[in-house]
């Protein structure tokens, strides 16, 4: 069949896959944030035992491949009778992974602000808790936006590995199409193009958000750069 005819069949399915990709990326990004920010606070302001614990979490999840983490949860946990669905396993594995990386960005932001701002807050009589709540946290968020938007883009890229545990995101759809129509290179390139478009648009959008909200200052290390 012609390429155009193939497109008519493939694109709708790829679109559905793309929605799943977005869903997984979005949920994992949120989980990562919900984990990452408290972990970062704990690492900067927490008692020694807590710091030790969360640093362990961060080092382990940053030091091992996300694919291994995924397999550990999806294939490994059943050894103890705990079985999660593909989606849940994906959310857990990638969410935990993202949490570790995001905690580093937030930690960098908090530490960059902490010194002077904390001194100023305490010097007007605020308690440590109040200072953290009213002075540090609001600024840390804005400070971390550039790194965080980089993480958002990374999420879309990383989420593709969940095709291996049968989560029907874009790459899974691609594999299905290929097994049916044997259109290997074309399908891959098509999916590749979609990723480029999506990531290109995301980058533009995020740059715009960045431009309007950030405080100019420290550059915090990003995941892959």
């Amino acid at each position: 069949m012609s390429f155009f005819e193939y497109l008519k069949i493939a694109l709708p399915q790829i679109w559905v896959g793309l929605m799943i990709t977005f869903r997984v990326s979005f949920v994992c990004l949120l989980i990562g944030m919900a984990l990452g920010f408290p972990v970062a606070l704990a690492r900067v302001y927490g008692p020694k035992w807590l710091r030790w614990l969360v640093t362990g979490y961060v080092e382990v999840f940053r030091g091992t491949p996300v694919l291994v983490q995924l397999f550990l949860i999806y294939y490994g946990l059943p050894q103890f009778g705990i079985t999660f669905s593909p989606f849940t396993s994906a959310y857990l594995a990638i969410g935990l992974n993202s949490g570790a990386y995001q905690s580093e960005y937030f930690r960098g932001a908090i530490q960059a602000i902490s010194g002077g701002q904390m001194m100023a807050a305490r010097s007007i009589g605020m308690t440590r808790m109040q200072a953290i709540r009213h002075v540090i946290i609001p600024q840390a968020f804005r400070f971390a936006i550039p790194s965080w938007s980089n993480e958002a883009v990374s999420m879309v890229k990383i989420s593709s590995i969940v095709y291996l545990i049968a989560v029907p995101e874009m790459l899974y759809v691609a594999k299905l199409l290929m097994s049916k129509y044997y259109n290997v290179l074309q399908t891959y390139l098509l999916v590749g193009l979609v990723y480029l478009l999506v990531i290109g648009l995301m980058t533009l959008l995020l740059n715009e958000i960045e431009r309007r909200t950030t405080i100019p200052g420290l550059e915090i290390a990003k995941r892959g750069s």
Partner: protein
Amino acid sequence: MEVLTVLIPYILRGLSITLEVTAVALGLGLLFGTILAILRVYGGKVLSGLLTQFVTILRALPHILLLLILYFMIARVVNLSAFWSGSMALAIISSAYQSEIIRGAIQSVPGGQMMAARSIGMSRFKAIWHVIIPQAFRFAIPPWSNEAAIVIKDSSLVYVLGVPEILRQAQYYSARTYQPFTAYLAVAAIYFLLTFITNRGLDALERRIRIPA
């Protein structure tokens, strides 16, 4: 524990492959990446622009997708084994990231250094070799250490090509013994050790060659 005695042979078999894949990917990635970086910085507008587009695309796509595409292209055209196709594919991907690192490092060297070198009569090539690169090298180590850890972890992706690296070996083990958690935990531990040693090692290197100030 008898678990260990059965597990360890699998692990070791996989570990050597994992290390080889990483070495090829990182090494060739460094070679291609350096060439890309030098061409992007000193290569003139057209070439530099083209290469930058190339690098941008490579960095925007999921690694596993790139791996599958490149594997498909390399294995069909050149008829290489899965090991070599996979390692080459990872090398190409890494070279894009490494070229960014090296380019950034070269551009971090103050512009006056090149001026000073030219002003005593050094040719452009000599200036790059004797003055720019030694300084850029030092700037590049921290981000390169990060990239090395990433390549170590990415080597797990060649699992999908059937390469018998450590993750694939763990899968074989768990298929035989119905102990997937043990298997994958061991794999995770190995990877953790590899990234840990690499990061510490490169930190030490950075401290040793630091320029006194």
